[in-house]
């Protein structure tokens, strides 16, 4: 078997197992108390760690435009429960930054 195909299949097996196994674990086990509270924090912590610091390093743009796009998203979503406007306006902000 060639190397690329082998890697694709191995990556699939690993990634799929990591995604699938917890469903069966939590099907059997009921959790509560501290562990439940701990798990409830994971989404927010994960989101935050995905965004920071990568938002500043992975986008090819001057930092000022990234900060502007970020502030816009924060202020918009503070008042409106909507994600579409922040997504599209931040793209426009970064794009304007590149064109200027």
């Amino acid at each position, binding site marked *: 078997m060639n190397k690329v195909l082998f890697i694709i299949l191995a990556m699939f097996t690993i990634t799929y197992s990591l*995604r699938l196994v917890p469903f069966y674990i939590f099907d059997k086990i009921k*959790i509560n108390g501290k562990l439940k509270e701990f798990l409830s924090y994971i989404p927010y912590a*994960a989101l935050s*760690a995905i965004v920071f610091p990568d938002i500043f390093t992975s986008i090819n743009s001057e930092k000022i435009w990234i900060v502007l796009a970020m502030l816009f998203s924060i202020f918009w979503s503070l008042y409106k429960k909507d994600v579409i406007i922040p997504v599209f306006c931040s793209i426009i902000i970064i794009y304007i930054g590149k064109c200027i």
Partner: protein
Amino acid sequence: MKIIYKAFKQSIPIITGYIPVAISFGILCKTTNLNLWQSAMFSFIVFAGAAQFMSVKMLALGVGSFEIILATFIMNFRMFFMSSVLAENLKKKDKKWYPFISFALTDEVFTVSVVGQKNINNLEVFLIQLFAYLAWGFGTITGYLIGSLFSINLLQSMEIALYSLFIALLTPEAKKSHRVFLLIILSALINTMLKCGKLVSHGTSFIIAVLLSALITSFIPKKNKGSDQNE
């Protein structure tokens, strides 16, 4: 029909973020001399954004299979925690859905289906995943075939989409709860310090930041019981 519309609406920001990144992935595959089938298989079979980029770059450098697979495991270990949380949050636990709603569980799908909504329904999660999956897969093929036709500036600008999505999802939650606000700051700080210090790998710093900040936050004593809970 209504549920399809709702799922599609929720997947729009994900799709917007995925398409340019998938196109870039297709372009990367082409410059790495993978063939179209291999590139498409990465996206349609593995479906794990950051890990795909990493492994193709490692392949190009001639890194051994074992190291690539180990790196995938470390990088994708976060999926284990995300799956656990989604499994806990499902409205109805239904075994026959598990193989389907776990396959395409990415950071973005997880986020949209968990943050800000409780007890999501199996079909809705599945549909959000399906739209995201198709955008990613066909984006890759598009990038491979005609990637050079796209405006680089626009593709690069579109990469902010997923970050803005995450920020717009986080902000209302941080506004609702001081603990979540603190948690977000902690996690961002820990991850930034670990990454800038370059002490651990990409996947490891993420896992440490998430687990440590969630652990610290769950042990902060509550002043008035129940007044600041996010439930």
